[in-house]
């Protein structure tokens, strides 16, 4: 006599194999950082080029004065990080789209990530260690 094969009633669904949400987060980051950059970059351009005589008043003292305030330090830091990662992520997508060979894709990405790390660390280093009392 053959046994009647029945699934357990209300058996739980097969757990889905999560592959990670990397692409989702990168997509979301592009939207959020894009909106933030509109404010940060346009604000920066306005202060630097339009307000109080624009570019003509910019000198060592002006930069030193701004970076004495944690607010402007944070502003510039946020702009640097967001712009670098936003642009880098965009270029990563372009490389993913257009690089035909795996090796090309790999080396282009290595170049991209290396340049991102270099510029982010250099910029961050300058913002935090800037010395207004520097003498020549």
């Amino acid at each position: 006599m053959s046994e009647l094969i029945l699934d357990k009633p209300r058996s739980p669904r097969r757990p889905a194999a999560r592959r990670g949400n990397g692409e989702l987060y990168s997509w979301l980051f592009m939207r959020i950082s894009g909106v933030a950059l509109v404010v940060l970059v346009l604000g920066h351009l306005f202060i630097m080029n339009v307000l109080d005589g624009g570019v003509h008043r910019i000198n060592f003292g002006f930069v030193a004065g701004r970076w004495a305030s944690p607010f402007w330090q944070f502003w510039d830091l946020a702009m640097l990080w967001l712009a670098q990662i936003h642009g880098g992520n965009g270029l990563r997508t372009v490389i993913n789209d257009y690089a035909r060979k795996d090796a090309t894709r790999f080396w282009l990405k290595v170049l991209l990530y290396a340049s991102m790390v270099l510029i982010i660390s250099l910029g961050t280093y300058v913002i935090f260690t800037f010395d207004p009392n520097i003498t020549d």
Partner: protein
Amino acid sequence: MTATAEVSTGSRGSQPPVPDGAITVTLKVRRFNPEFDDEPRWDSFEIPALASDRVLNLLHYVKWYLDGTLTFRRSCAHGICGSDAMRINGVNRLACKVLLKDLLSSGGKQTTITVEPIKGLPVHKDLLVDMEPFFEAFRAVKPYLITYGNEPTRERVQSVADRERFDDTTKCILCACCTTSCPVYWTEGSYFGPAAIVNAHRFIFDSRDEGAEERLDILNDVDGVWRCRTTFNCTDACPRGIQVTKAIQEVKRALLFKRV
């Protein structure tokens, strides 16, 4: 019966009488014969046609009376089977749904219609492409009903409102117009493409289906919905009028908010 030169090219022989009111149009076809050609080439044909003719009629005219070696797919010829997707004047259309009157040049100038195979899929011959990569992506999203547990003893009932959610994406005929109009698909063939996402959408948003999470996981991958750049080429190309980009955005939203 004696063989004639025209029979040997595979065409039907003598041309039919030209109907009243026919206009002569130039049909430029991008051709490729893997046995002889290294590169695709353009062939032009002068065809007497009526404004009410479809582009498919012009192709038939070439095949039947001018050059029987012209190769293309078509089955129903009425916009249902989705066999004759091709690039007509640079946009993806079904040859059986494009009327000549919509392509005529203004001011009585000579009309030239270009016909190319759909892009992004390997060309076998002339307008005939290998659809396998396209169907492979379609199969990968599990386009069938998935349920767990015991089967109900009665019909799986669904409300009108629940049916409405995926009504648009049930219209897909898998002609590949959308997928082969997508710039991301042209450059990166591993992208699932709009058609596969449309068919995943059809089941993800079906209240009777329980496989939404599996499909969303598949589409959350590197080659999934996040590759979409919302260029709307797919929506423009769809001969069934499916809001393809909207469907892709709905899948993105379902992933983002973890809610179907």
